[in-house]
C-alpha cells in the first residue's frame, strides 16, 4: 500500500462525497480503475459537467480544451489537486496534494511526459489529452516482459500523432499489445493522408490499397521505412544470432532486408527482402494478405470426387477434416465413409481435427480434454490413421489470456493424458488464436499450431506474433467451384516442412518401424563383424559416425571403429538420419541420440553428484551451450531462472529459439535410459524396440530424472558441478569452448558468477527436469 495514494483517495472522497453522481473509492492505498474513475468524476464536476461518468469522453476533453493547458500560474485549487493525486497514483511525485501547481508538480509532469514522449521531450503543462492519460491505468515505464525497443516506438507514436483528433496517448510499457497494434493502424492511415474522420483505426480496404502503393526496398528512407521497421519488430523476427529484430529505423538497410527475408521465409511469402503488399499485410494483421494463394483448407462438407477435383485444380493439397462429432450438434461435419479414399485418390492429403460441442459451457476442462482425446483416438484408429499422426484439438472462440490459463491449458493437459492413456498413438496439435497456440505449445508441447488468423480482431490475435510452430494459418472463407464441385472452405496458408499430413491410411510401415529395422540390421552386422568391441557399442558408433566423430568428440567419448563403418557401408545400408518420436511427434536426430548413448554406455553413471564425459555427450554439453546463450542475452534476462523458464527445453521451430530444445532433452534422456538397459547380455535391437514401440517413451522423463538426477537438490548440485568442475581437463576445455563460441571470448564463466546468480540458473535447469518428469 502506498500512503500517498491513500491520501489521494481520502482527499477525493472527502471533497466530492456529497456531489451527485460521485462514487467514493475504497481508501486502500492501492491504485486501480476505481480511483481513476473517482478522479475522472471529480474533474468533470470541476468542469461543470452535469452528469458524471467514468468515461473521459469528448465532453470532458472539450471542457478542458476550453480551459487550455494547465501549468505553473495557470490554475489552482481542486483541478490541480486532481492532477497531483493522479500523479501519485501513476508513480510520479508532485510534492504533495497542495492545490498549487508549483515546481514539484511541474517536475512530476516533466518526468511523466518524458516517459510518454521520450527522454528530452518532456513538457511542463498538462494538456487535455495528457490529462486523459493521467486518469488511466496505463504504464509509461518498461514493465516485466517489455523491451526498450518497443517502448521507443510507443513513445514515438505518442509524439508524432497526439495532435490528431482520434489519437490518444498509448502505454509506453515496452509491450506489444492490442493498443499498440491499433495505434499502428492509425499511424498508417494518417501517413496515407486520411482525414481524422476517415482514420478509424480499422484495417479496412482503404488502408490495404493505400499500403499497396508503398512498396519499399533496400535503400529506401523515410517515414514508411520507420513504420515498417516497427511492425517488423512487433513480429519478433528471429535473427541468426538468436536475438529478434529490434531496430527502429528510417533507413532500409541490408540488415533490414535480411530480416524481411527471414520473416517472408517464416510466413511463407515470396522471399524478396522487400516490403511489398503481402509483407506489409503480414506484419500488420493476423490474416496477412487474405487473397494470397493457400495450399490448404478446412471444411465441414464431405469431399466428393467433384469437390476434390475443384480443390486440386485451385491449388489445394492439404484438407482439414473433422474426425468425429457429437450427434447432438446441428452440423454434419465429420469424415464420411469412403471419403478419405476419395481425397487420397485425387492427390490430396488430410489433417484431422477434433472438435466436440458439449452441452455445458465448461467444455474446456481437464476431464473433457481427457475424454475428447480418447474419443479422437478411437475415431482416428477407426479410420486407420497411422501412429504419429497429428490431431488438431480446436479452441474455436476467442479465449482471453486469463481463460487460456484457467481453462484451455487444463483442457490440453487432459488431451495429453488422454492420448497417453490410449497408448500414445497420436500426437496433439492445437487450433486457435495466436496466443492460444503459443501458450498451449509452451505448456503442453503441442506439435504444430493451426492458427485462426482469419479472426484478426480476436484478443488472442491482435498484439501477438505468429507462433513458432505454425503449420496452417486460416486466413479466408470462400466458395470455390461450380455445381456439384462447389464447396465452401476456409483457406489456410500451409508452411512447407511442417506437418506432412496424411496421404494414406491403413499403412503399416512407419518411420519408427524403419528405424527399428535399421538398428536391428546394424546389430546383425556388428555381430557378424566380430572385432574387439561389443556389438551394441559398434551400433552406436555407426549411428553417430557422420556427425559426431571429430576431434572433440573423439576425445570426449572415444573413436569409432572405422573398419566396422566401412564394412557396413560395403554391404550396403540405407541410412536413417531422423526418427519421429512416438510421444511428441518431434523428429529426433539419430546421430545425436547415438553419440549421447555411446557416451553414456562407455562412461556409465557417475557416483553421487559427480559428472563425467558421458554426461557432457548428453545433457552436460547442451547445458553449457545454453549457459552461453543466457550470458549472451543477459542484458535482457538478468535472471538465469527466468531465462530457463522461458527458453529451456521448449518445442520450437528449428530456425528460432535456443539450442537446448525439447528435442535435445528427449535425445539426452533416451540416450541415458537406453544405455542403462544395454548392460549385460541385452541386445540393442531388442532394447530399442521395447523402448520405442512398447511404451518406454511414456515414462522417459520420470525415469531419467530419477535415475540420473535423483531429486531437486541433487539435480542442482549435479548441474553446478557440470558448470564448474575443474577435475577433468577435457570437460574444462570443452566447457570453455562451448560457452565462448556461443557468447564471445569475454563471457563470464559459471565460476565467475556470484553463488546466488549461478544458483538461480541451475535452479531453472532442475525445475525444468522436474516439470518434464511430470509429463511421464
Amino acid at each position, binding site marked *: 500500500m502506498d500512503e500517498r495514494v491513500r491520501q489521494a483517495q481520502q482527499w477525493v472522497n472527502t471533497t466530492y462525497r456529497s456531489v451527485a453522481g460521485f*462514487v467514493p473509492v475504497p481508501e486502500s492505498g492501492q491504485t486501480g480503475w476505481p480511483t481513476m*474513475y473517482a478522479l475522472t468524476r471529480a474533474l468533470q464536476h470541476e468542469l461543470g459537467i*452535469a*452528469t*458524471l*461518468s*467514468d*468515461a473521459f*469522453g*469528448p*465532453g*470532458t476533453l*472539450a471542457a478542458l480544451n476550453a480551459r487550455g493547458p494547465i501549468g505553473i500560474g495557470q490554475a489552482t485549487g481542486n483541478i490541480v489537486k486532481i492532477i497531483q493525486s493522479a500523479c501519485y497514483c501513476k508513480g510520479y511525485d508532485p510534492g504533495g496534494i497542495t492545490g498549487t501547481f508549483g515546481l514539484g508538480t511541474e517536475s512530476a509532469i516533466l518526468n511523466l511526459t518524458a516517459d510518454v514522449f521520450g527522454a528530452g521531450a518532456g513538457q511542463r503543462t498538462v494538456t487535455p489529452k495528457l490529462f486523459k492519460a493521467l486518469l488511466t491505468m496505463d504504464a509509461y515505464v518498461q514493465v516485466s516482459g517489455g523491451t526498450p525497443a518497443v517502448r521507443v516506438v510507443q513513445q514515438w507514436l505518442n509524439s508524432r500523432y497526439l495532435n490528431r483528433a*482520434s489519437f490518444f496517448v498509448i502505454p509506453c510499457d515496452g509491450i506489444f499489445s492490442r493498443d499498440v497494434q491499433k495505434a499502428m493502424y492509425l499511424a498508417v492511415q494518417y501517413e496515407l493522408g486520411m482525414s481524422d*474522420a*476517415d482514420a*478509424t*483505426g*480499422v484495417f*479496412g*480496404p*482503404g488502408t490495404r490499397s493505400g499500403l499497396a502503393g508503398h512498396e519499399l526496398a533496400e535503400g529506401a528512407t523515410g517515414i514508411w521505412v520507420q513504420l515498417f521497421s516497427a511492425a517488423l519488430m512487433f513480429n519478433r523476427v528471429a535473427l541468426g544470432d538468436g536475438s529478434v529484430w529490434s531496430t527502429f529505423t528510417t533507413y532500409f538497410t541490408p540488415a533490414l532486408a535480411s530480416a524481411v527475408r527471414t520473416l517472408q521465409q517464416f510466413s511463407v511469402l515470396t522471399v524478396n527482402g522487400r516490403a511489398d503488399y503481402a509483407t506489409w499485410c503480414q506484419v500488420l494483421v493476423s*490474416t496477412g494478405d487474405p487473397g494470397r494463394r493457400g495450399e490448404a483448407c*478446412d*471444411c*465441414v*462438407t464431405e469431399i466428393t470426387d467433384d469437390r476434390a477435383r475443384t480443390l486440386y485444380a485451385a491449388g489445394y493439397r492439404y484438407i482439414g477434416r473433422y474426425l468425429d462429432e457429437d450427434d*447432438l*450438434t*446441428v*452440423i454434419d*461435419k465429420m469424415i464420411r465413409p469412403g471419403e478419405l479414399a476419395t481425397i487420397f485418390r485425387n492427390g490430396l492429403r488430410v489433417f484431422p*481435427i477434433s*472438435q466436440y*460441442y458439449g*452441452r*455445458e*459451457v*465448461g*467444455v474446456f476442462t481437464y476431464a473433457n480434454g481427457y475424454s475428447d482425446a480418447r474419443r479422437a483416438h478411437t475415431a482416428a484408429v477407426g479410420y486407420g490413421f497411422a501412429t504419429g499422426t497429428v490431431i488438431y484439438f*480446436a479452441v*474455436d*472462440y*476467442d479465449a*482471453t489470456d*486469463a*481463460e487460456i490459463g484457467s481453462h484451455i491449458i487444463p483442457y490440453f493437459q487432459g488431451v495429453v493424458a488422454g492420448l497417453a492413456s490410449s497408448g500414445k498413438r497420436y500426437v496433439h496439435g492445437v*487450433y486457435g488464436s495466436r496466443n492460444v497456440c503459443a501458450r498451449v505449445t509452451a505448456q503442453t508441447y503441442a506439435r504444430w499450431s493451426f492458427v*485462426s488468423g*482469419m*479472426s*484478426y*480482431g*480476436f*484478443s488472442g*490475435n491482435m498484439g501477438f506474433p505468429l507462433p513458432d510452430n505454425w503449420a496452417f494459418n*486460416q486466413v479466408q472463407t470462400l466458395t470455390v467451384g461450380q455445381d456439384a464441385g462447389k464447396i*465452401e*472452405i*476456409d483457406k489456410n496458408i500451409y508452411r512447407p516442412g511442417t506437418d506432412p499430413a496424411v496421404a494414406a491410411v491403413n499403412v503399416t510401415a512407419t518411420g519408427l518401424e524403419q528405424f527399428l529395422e535399421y538398428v536391428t540390421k546394424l546389430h546383425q552386422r556388428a555381430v557378424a563383424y566380430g572385432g574387439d568391441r561389443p556389438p551394441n557399442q559398434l551400433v552406436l558408433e555407426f549411428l553417430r559416425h557422420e556427425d559426431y566423430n571429430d576431434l572433440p568428440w573423439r576425445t570426449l567419448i572415444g573413436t569409432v571403429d572405422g573398419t566396422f563403418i566401412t564394412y557396413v557401408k560395403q554391404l550396403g545400408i540405407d541410412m536413417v538420419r531422423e526418427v519421429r518420436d512416438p510421444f511428441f511427434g518431434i523428429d529426433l536426430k539419430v546421430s545425436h541420440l547415438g553419440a549421447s548413448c555411446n557416451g553414456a554406455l562407455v562412461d556409465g553413471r557417475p557416483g553421487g553428484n559427480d559428472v563425467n564425459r558421458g554426461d557432457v555427450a548428453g545433457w552436460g554439453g547442451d547445458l553449457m551451450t545454453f549457459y552461453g546463450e543466457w550470458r549472451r542475452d543477459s542484458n535482457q534476462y538478468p535472471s538465469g531462472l527466468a531465462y530457463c523458464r522461458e527458453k529451456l527445453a521448449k518445442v520450437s521451430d528449428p530456425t528460432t529459439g535456443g539450442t537446448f530444445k525439447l528435442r535435445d532433452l528427449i535425445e539426452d534422456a533416451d540416450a541415458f535410459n537406453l544405455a542403462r538397459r544395454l548392460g549385460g547380455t541385452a541386445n540393442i535391437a531388442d532394447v530399442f524396440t521395447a523402448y520405442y514401440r512398447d511404451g518406454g517413451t511414456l515414462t522417459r522423463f520420470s525415469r531419467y530424472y530419477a535415475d540420473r538426477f535423483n531429486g531437486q537438490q541433487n539435480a542442482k548440485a549435479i548441474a553446478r558441478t557440470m558448470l564448474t568442475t575443474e577435475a577433468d581437463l577435457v570437460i574444462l576445455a570443452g566447457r570453455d569452448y562451448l560457452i565462448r563460441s556461443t557468447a564471445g571470448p569475454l563471457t563470464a564463466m559459471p565460476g565467475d558468477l556470484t553463488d546466488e546468480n549461478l544458483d538461480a540458473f541451475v535452479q531453472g535447469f532442475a525445475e525444468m527436469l522436474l516439470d518434464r518428469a511430470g509429463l511421464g
Partner: protein
Amino acid sequence: MSARLSRRTLLVLMAGSAGTTMIDIGPAAAAAPVTYRIEGSDATVALAAAAAPVLLYAARRFHYEVDPIRPGEVAPLFGGTGVLLRPGAYPAGATDVLFPAQVLVIRDILVGCGGLVRWGGDDRTPSAGLFRLDVRPGDPRLAAWHAAGGSTPGSSPDPLQPSRRTAARNLKNRQTR
C-alpha cells in the same frame, strides 16, 4: 470452425460460467435468462436465450472496437432482452461520452444486428451503453438472424463502406426517439 453456423453455435455454447446450457433458438425460448460470456472479454451476463445471439454480437463488437469491457461492467436489463455495457462510463443522461469514431462503429454494429436491436444512445434520455431488442423476443427474425450467421467472429466490417453508412443512417432515422 468452417461453417458459420458452427462458429455461432460454439460461441453460445462457450458462453458464461458453469451451468450454462445450450440455447434453443426457437421462438418458445424466451423464458429464463442464461449466463453467457462476452467473447474476447472476461465479462459475463445473463440474457434471455432468444435475445442472446444478437445482443452478444453487439457486446462482443463493442468490446473489440468501441471500449473494452472488464468483468463486472455489464448488466442485463428488461428481463435479459437488453444489455447495459459499462454503466459507470455511460450512465443514463450522460452526453458527449463517446468519440465520433466510436459512434461510427456503434452505428455499424446496429446494421450488423439487422435492425433487431436499438441503441440507448438514440433514446430521449441517452444511455450510450444500452443495447436492447427492438422486436419481441418471439420474433422469428431473431432465429433467422442467428441461423444466417454473419461475418467471421473477430473480423469487423469496414464501417466506412458507403452501403453500410447508408444503412446506418436509415436505421438511425427509424430508431431515434
